[in-house]
């Protein structure tokens, strides 16, 4: 991984990035152990985790409750508790997530004006940071601002966990159902 990347006014160093990504991978492992979608997602501000997210599609019966959306809500709550301006906080927050954000989440991250997203594996089906569409860097009207991406950290493990999850969930499922399952990331 490259030595450093600018995030707003802050500089993110490689060791720091790797340490947070290790935490995200641990979260994904924990989720997998609980039979949940193995995606880990952390929002880090001033070297502090101010938001975490896991996929809550099943609990809420709302197909948009991806880990990133949940984590954004946690950051907003944190801002209210700490009497901080969310806009100012998001501008200096880095998202660490084990899988490339989908098109929807990439647009949401832009609108929150998060400057940097560090992620593990590609999201071949829905990825919004280059895999399907490049929402992260596109020129878009009234849809927040582009953000920088650092992909690829421990991506093999992130992919392997997703594969394991789909195998566990549908040991005998016909192919069509397995494919449908993949839409939860």
């Amino acid at each position, binding site marked *: 991984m490259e030595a450093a990347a600018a995030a707003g006014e802050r500089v993110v160093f490689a060791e720091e990035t790797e340490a947070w990504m290790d935490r995200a991978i641990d979260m994904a492992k924990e989720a997998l152990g609980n039979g949940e979608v193995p995606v880990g997602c952390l929002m880090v501000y001033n070297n502090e985790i101010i938001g975490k997210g896991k996929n*809550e*599609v*099943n*609990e*809420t*019966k*709302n*197909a*948009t*409750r991806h880990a990133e*959306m949940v984590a*954004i*809500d946690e950051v*907003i709550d944190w801002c209210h508790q700490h009497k901080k301006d*969310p806009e100012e906080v998001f501008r200096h927050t880095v998202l660490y997530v084990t899988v490339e954000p*989908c*098109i*929807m989440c*990439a*647009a*949401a991250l832009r*609108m*929150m004006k998060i400057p940097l997203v560090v992620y593990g594996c590609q999201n071949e*089906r*829905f990825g*919004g940071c280059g895999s*399907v*569409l490049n*929402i992260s860097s596109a020129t*878009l*009207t*009234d*849809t927040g601002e582009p953000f920088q991406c650092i992909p690829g950290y421990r991506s093999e493990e992130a992919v392997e966990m997703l594969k394991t999850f789909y195998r566990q969930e549908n040991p005998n*499922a016909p192919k069509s*159902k397995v*494919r*449908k*399952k*993949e*839409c*939860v990331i």
Partner: protein
Amino acid sequence: MLMEPDCKRQKTEEPRGASPWQVVPVLSERESQGVTLMPVYAAPVLDKKEASRLVKEVSAIYPLGDYPHLKRVRARGSVDSSHPLEMILCRASGRHQQGALRTLSELFPSGQLDPSGLGTPFLTQVPVYPPLTRRQYEEAASHWPVSFHENKRITQALSGCLFTPSEKTALQSHMELAIQAAQRGARQGMKPVGAVVVDPATGRVLAVGHDCRDGINPLLHAAMVCIDLVACGQGGGAYRYQDYPGCSFLLSANGLDQSSGADGLPYICTGYDMYLTREPCVMCAMALVHSRIERVFYGAPSPHGALATKYHIHSRKDLNHRYEVYRGILEDRCCDLAHLSVPK
């Protein structure tokens, strides 16, 4: 707030036919775009009697397998009686450098072709893709003859005949509900955008909502609100809307636990229609893919829209769900909503 399941929706006293509107289908990117051309080598057929033999021999050497819509031969009509027919020889790319003129012996070096009856090759432009709409067909055919398998449903939709008058009345009344929701939201300082979810199988309105980005949460655009309200109606939901009476849902009549599909997953908008006063953004358009919405009807276009304006997210082959989109429903009144924005 919860809707009374048996409550009759308030009839709106809108002047009927005040401003005319049309349902316009929003087709896929491929269906909406103009014709793309590629260069080919063609040659006049000087002797008509040689034509069928030449077609057979040239097709064996240079098949048009990837371009089954292209007719090999075209008639020149009476424009130039010296050679009534012209035929495509091969693509002018790859090993034939694009744009450079070639002789017959250069194009057919193997000697497998008996060139008698063929004139001097020339370069011309032909359509790369098969035409999907009548408009594309007419444009394509002006360059070179192509075959066209007309999709009757698309033609019908484009001519405005897909919906019956009674269906149009239903579209209008549902969009009126979305407009009212937008107005109610605007009175509470919200962006004047409204949304409605309807089950077309029963005609029931399942959720009515307005934009809450300036209230509950910055990502609660009207479409996101309505997706969540439908989830609330199924016993789920991520947000509470008690401060916003313009946001309401119908509690699922079949109980709270019937939302899972055959595979146990909550694709709760499967089979449903969403009405939006304006074209959704990238986030909302993709949220509707994740939610497996069936059809989207919107009124006003938006510069940040992700359906007709950019991306065509509803009809991308590389996503696992597609939905139909129609725009233009009560377009003028939906456009007028923008003036309701409350200065902060």
